[in-house]
């Protein structure tokens, strides 16, 4: 159940997520009202884009990290327990280091997803230049109004960032494979 809710943004269309966030943070939404009472509005301000990107990207982070935890050989944890080591120490000294490549991979994936979000951001952030206009939105509106040069510059920028991210990903996957190979398997 919780798993389903946490993974939902991965399968829902971004505009749907944006719509749901709009309802949630809108003037009449439960969170919107709460924020209103302390004198803040989120909709169409830069925090809105952050919220949209986070919600959209979170499932990638969550799933990657979870599978990294699940992949740890349970016997390694059990071995630490038989040695009389506390759960706290096991977590920080064994679980986290072993899951680290997964955590890193999740971060990179989530980052890429957040960077590329269009639908959800547009729904609750709008496209106010200098405030809530994200790169994908900028590309869309530039291309739409025929400013191909401007669009191309943004595309190149995204291209470079994505390339760097992909290189990092490959590096981490290799690293992870190496770690798993050392886990004492036959």
């Amino acid at each position: 159940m919780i798993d389903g809710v946490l993974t939902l943004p991965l399968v829902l269309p971004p505009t749907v997520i944006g719509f749901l966030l709009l309802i949630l943070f809108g003037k009449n939404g439960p969170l919107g009202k709460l924020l209103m009472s302390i004198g803040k509005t989120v909709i169409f301000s830069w925090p809105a884009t952050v919220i949209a990107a986070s919600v959209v990207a979170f499932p990638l982070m969550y799933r990657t990290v979870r599978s990294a935890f699940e992949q740890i050989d349970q016997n390694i944890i059990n071995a630490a327990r038989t040695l009389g080591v506390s759960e706290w120490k096991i977590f920080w000294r064994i679980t986290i280091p072993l899951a680290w490549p997964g955590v890193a991979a999740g971060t990179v994936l989530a980052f890429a997803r957040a960077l590329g979000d269009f639908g959800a951001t547009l729904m609750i952030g709008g496209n106010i230049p200098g405030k809530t206009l994200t790169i994908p939105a900028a590309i869309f509106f530039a291309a739409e109004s025929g400013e191909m040069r401007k669009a191309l510059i943004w595309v190149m920028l995204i291209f470079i960032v994505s390339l760097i991210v992909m290189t990092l990903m490959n590096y981490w996957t290799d690293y992870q494979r190496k770690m798993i190979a050392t886990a004492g398997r036959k």
Partner: protein
Amino acid sequence: MEILVDIQKKLPGFELDVNFDTGMDILGLLGASGSGKSMTLRCIAGIDTPDRGRIVLNGRTLFDSQKGVNLPCRKRKMGYLFQNYALFPNMTVEENIGFGIEDKKREERMAIIKEKVKMIKLEGLEKRYPNQLSGGQQQRVALARALAIEPEALLLDEPFSALDDYLRSHMVKQLTETLADYPGVTLFVTHNMDEAYSVCNKLVVLSMGKIEAKGGTEEVFRSPPTLVSAQLTGCKNSSLAKYISPFEVEALDWGITLKTKNEIVKHIEFVGIRAHEIELALDEKQDNVFSCWLNFTTQTPSRITAYLSMQVATLGKGGYHIQWEITKQMWFELKDKPQPWNLRFNPDNLIIV
């Protein structure tokens, strides 16, 4: 030094129900895979929890379902050697060995690590990571790590199953030497009867969660009390048996009547003989000599297993009554001799259950 184990636990397909105690001996738990032997070890270490029962180590109750005692794994002070070693891949050899004793002072800790590294003969490799070690070396590190906490009991879960044959015999010898100096209870789980025989002084034979035999290793191998324990200790030939007289038993599957050395009881069920303990008869006047025909053979580099039929020359494709294991040399002397061959089931070697 003593451990007392009496536990029950429901497992998929059967109920684990074991009850044994042991002192300073090396106790072997022998059983086929899925017999519950590893689960028994996990329950003793506190990795899994039994449904009912009691585990007492040196007078200290680790688990007692009636009193509601269930010490967590980390308070049981047991060294556990996992089948896949379960070394910490993110730590070096010395960090692995020292991980369980980090509460000790630095000098003391370094001294223990040094001593253990020397014990497992890995001097110079202290800074290596597990993936830079061979399987045998990894296993030694795992053993050193388990012994570093000075456990009151050492639990070995199929420690040799991931090693190749050559390394295995070498490691068995080395482990036996290490264990000779270890002043605690040792439990050794294996499915390999050769390992059990060479490492353990006492044996518990498990099948489907139940104890089939327990006692001194020699004794269990010489006269296993049940058919299953006979088979698990390597008896390849068995037949339904019928009581004829106090010193005679009929092997129904083989169609022969065998003389026994000891007096037998009326309700015997099976008679068996180990494949390598069948003898070539010197002359026909000996007792328990029968005619056998060769059906087919299989071989290993050093030995031949002949699959023989009794009373009749052949049993059709793949059929046989008994297996007979002999050396290659003996086989070359014998194979061209006319059949049937006269083989002797020495009364000393019969297994009757």
